[in-house]
């Protein structure tokens, strides 16, 4: 899946987690802008993993702070 298609799918997946309907850009941070707590992060990561059939380990998650970085990571992990 290319970056545009990956981004589109992630946009669908994040919608139910974005309860306040905050406008998301590539620079949006999960902890700051989107106010994801650790439990939300866990659930959201599990959704992404299952949708793309990948593993995003805790080690890799530590490097992902904003939305754009997540898209890049998922593109890369799909190989």
């Amino acid at each position, binding site marked *: 899946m290319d970056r545009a298609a990956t981004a589109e799918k992630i946009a669908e997946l994040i919608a139910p987690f974005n309860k306040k309907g905050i406008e998301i850009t590539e620079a949006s941070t999960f902890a700051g802008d989107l106010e994801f707590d650790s439990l939300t992060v866990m659930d959201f990561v599990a959704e992404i993993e*299952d949708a793309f059939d990948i593993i995003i380990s*805790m080690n890799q998650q530590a490097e992902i702070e904003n939305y754009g970085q997540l898209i890049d990571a998922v593109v890369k992990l799909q190989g």
Partner: protein
Amino acid sequence: MTDLFSKFDPLIEQRRALLSTGVTDPFNLVMEKVLSPTEAICNGKPTILLGTYNYMGMTFDPDVIEAGKQALDDFGSGTTGSRVLNGTYAGHRLVEDALKEFYGMDHAMVFSTGYQANLGIISTIAGKGDYIVLDIDSHASIWDGCKMGDAEVVPFKHNDIEAMEKRLKRIPEGAGKLVVLEGVYSMLGDIAPLKEMIKVAKDNGAMVLVDEAHSMGFIGEHGRGVAEAQGVLDQVDFVIGTFSKSVGTVGGFCVSNHPKFEIMRLVCRPYVFTASLPPSVVHTAATSIRKLMHAGNKRAHLWENSKVLHKGLTDAGFQLGTKEPESAIISVIMPDLERGAMMWEALLHEGLYVNLARPPATPANMTLLRCSLCAEHSAEQVQKIIGMFTRAGKAVGILG
């Protein structure tokens, strides 16, 4: 003022707000005198202990006490050394032999705490390029062991066999795999479907580590834990346990049948770079473990206590962590931290001590009043406890 402590400001404020309501600090209680495994004096008042993990009530066993006193006389107050230097005494070998016999396993390695056992084994066996697949509700010592090592860490939803399997199947071919599970999860007192999970782990080529801290001495025919009760102990590569619960002292261990296990003594840093347990501790532990091998009647009474308390609290209208009693932990779910703290204090006034557990230690941001039963709680004490809960629940407004 801004300095390195500024990151703790939200927690300091939450604590200040809670204590300003006049509630007793639930994290600052002092046991002034301990009368038995089930009773102490707190704030000058006799208090029933229902939050000590002292499942088998071994802390005042006369044989256990005697072994400790004798060891103090014979070996002194401490070893002042690492297990691999001057810190291995006869007692350390004695307790490792007792553990091997208790579990029917070839190797046993004793650490200074249970926390260090998880920290040491997990961080050492899973290295760079390996994968650790673990339950998301794992104990802090398991998470810290993962953090200390260099492996890739992959959590899955609590007790979700399918989620675990999916993640195992996505691991790159050839990578080493370690699945980490617990027998009893201490926050809600629920058990793991180890039989199914271990099968999935083995089918996918993973080694399996099970933390049986909250089941040792109690669950399973010989008290070996949930893996024994479910008939899969022989499939477990590493059992982690502690002396600070059913055994009644302090210390941690790992038992294993792995033929190369003994090398851990040289490569496991939390084992090497710390002083070994004091002689009195290892002698009390060895004596206690041997007595736990023949504690079938106590196990039966503890199950009875767990069932009666679970039913009593359910009937009173409390919401519990499990539908049926699955272990010696009965967790009472509180609506929020403030009312949890009020309920905790009301119980203390009634003369009952339980654990107040709150995020981040708890799953799903819950506030819990966690009760851990003891085989030495009498049937009368359990009835008394149900009465105390009911009165406190009404006083605080949790029960209608």
